[in-house]
């Protein structure tokens, strides 16, 4: 098509039907879930992005991404209509350079790269780090972890299903970098569970 890039029609559809209120509702859910790590929280609104991006992750992208937030996508996502959809609805640029990304999207079953490959922030500006949005099979029914830290009264149990086996090692290393490090948003369907870098995890015994 020469200089003209034809965009699949799915790139133009599937955004919020009521952008102001739906993005506010998702933002509120994200804020609450980040403040109460490990708590399963309904997003309150979903989107219908092109496959393989899920409805919940799509709603998060519409809410958080804009032209100032470069996004890193897995191989499967970047070879779908998702980059065009993101660009049209959020103006977010897609980057192939992991440390440049402010947001990272990984579809269910996609390979989760090592967290330290992304932006970890600096001692002076720990906020200049990546937030990873990882879609998983379910927020319950997986191996059990005991979580503790700010926003958690004593301890809480969480059992996300579909994270890689090495997850606990990755997370412990990430926790060790504090105040640097990445933050995680785990998504299953229209529900989320957040793990900010302040949360300590250990495997639940027995």
């Amino acid at each position, binding site marked *: 098509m020469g200089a*003209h*890039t034809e965009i699949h029609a799915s790139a*133009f559809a599937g955004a919020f039907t009521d952008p102001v209120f739906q993005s506010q509702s998702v933002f509120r859910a994200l804020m609450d879930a980040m403040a109460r790590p490990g708590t399963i929280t309904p997003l309150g609104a979903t989107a219908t992005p092109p496959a393989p991006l899920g409805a919940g992750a799509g709603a998060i992208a519409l809410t958080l991404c804009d032209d*100032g937030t470069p996004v890193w996508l897995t191989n499967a996502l970047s070879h779908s209509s998702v980059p065009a959809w993101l*660009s049209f609805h959020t*103006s977010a640029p897609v980057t192939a350079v992991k440390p440049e990304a402010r947001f990272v999207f990984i579809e269910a079953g996609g390979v989760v790269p090592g967290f330290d490959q992304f932006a970890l922030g600096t001692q002076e500006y720990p906020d200049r780090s990546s937030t990873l949005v990882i879609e998983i099979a379910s927020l319950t029914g997986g191996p059990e972890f005991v979580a503790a830290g700010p926003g958690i009264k004593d301890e809480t149990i969480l059992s996300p299903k579909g994270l890689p086996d090495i997850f606990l090692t990755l997370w412990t290393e990430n926790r060790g970098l504090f105040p640097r490090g990445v933050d995680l948003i785990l998504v299953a369907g229209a529900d989320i569970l957040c793990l900010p870098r302040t949360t300590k995890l250990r495997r639940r015994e027995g």
Partner: protein
Amino acid sequence: MYVAVKGGEAAIANAHQLLADRRRGDRSLPAISIDQIVAQLGLAVDRVMAEASLYDRELAALAVRQARGDMIEAIFILRAYRTTLPRFGMSVPVDTASMKIERRISATYKDLPGGQLLGPTFDYTHRLLDPSLLADEPVAEPLRRTADGSSMMRVSDILAGEGLIESDGQMPEDHVPGDLTREPLEFPLNRDLRLQALARGDEGFLLALAYSTQRGYARTHPFVGEVRIGEVEVELDIPELGFAVSLGPVQVTECQMVNQFQGSAKNPPQFTRGYGLVFGQSERKAMAMSLVDRALRAQEFGEDIVAPAQDEEFVISHSDNVQATGFVEHLKLPHYVDFQAELDLVRRMRAEYDARNGIEKNETIRDAAE
């Protein structure tokens, strides 16, 4: 002891109602319309757009009206408004070489290609108050002369032909233009970020700094290579289409200041340049900006930093009038508790001083204010 103070809601509401009344003024006079402000106070509107860093004549005129003509208040209001809007993207850089010229003058070449076009200037007016404006007398249509359509070559290109002037500013490879609306400033800055800050900087502050360089505080031997005012197209890349589309024209003022440079170990003797680019018709600001831009390049040219206009952190940290007014004007807000602490301290020091010097305690009406 910290005492929380509450109250004043009624006074604030009434003050705002009084403000609205005073803003409207004499009801027997017609209210001034936004169109009138845009059309007849155009340079005030341009200043608000330039320093608010938001090109929108109608909104700038509304801000001028709302602020009762207080320019910095109007700039503040427009700046606040822009934070409510999402950003769609970055334009293709505007091409000032293909500007639709309304004014173009050079102080360095008399007979330059395209000629000297005075345009709607205050220059050569006598600065005598004009009573005909009181009478609202009819204004004649401007005269016309066939435009030859010749291209308006840049003065810098004329000097470049002889190899006697530095090239246009280049940044390192892969440099992404800095944006002070997105990232906090970290000194030292690159020239691109300095130009963004200067373009929105306070006209009076930049004018004073520019003047100081002429009076010997970092002399740069300036000549106006060229000032041009006119419209340029704003184009935006549309990712869905794969090409850039014009959004319409904006008016800008550009100044190329040419400065003699004696050379250094790294650079041969040549002319260097300061650059000014400002929204709207704002020649004084564009000229001041170009002088300050050149002064701030002292380090680049191995010049000694001896004057305020060369001190990047000083200039850029204090050029923004919204920041400046916020910090100066916040002093009028209640500081009752801070002041009580200071008062106690001074009383204590004074008592010690008096005791040392054998002065008897002077009974005052100290409690009257408490």
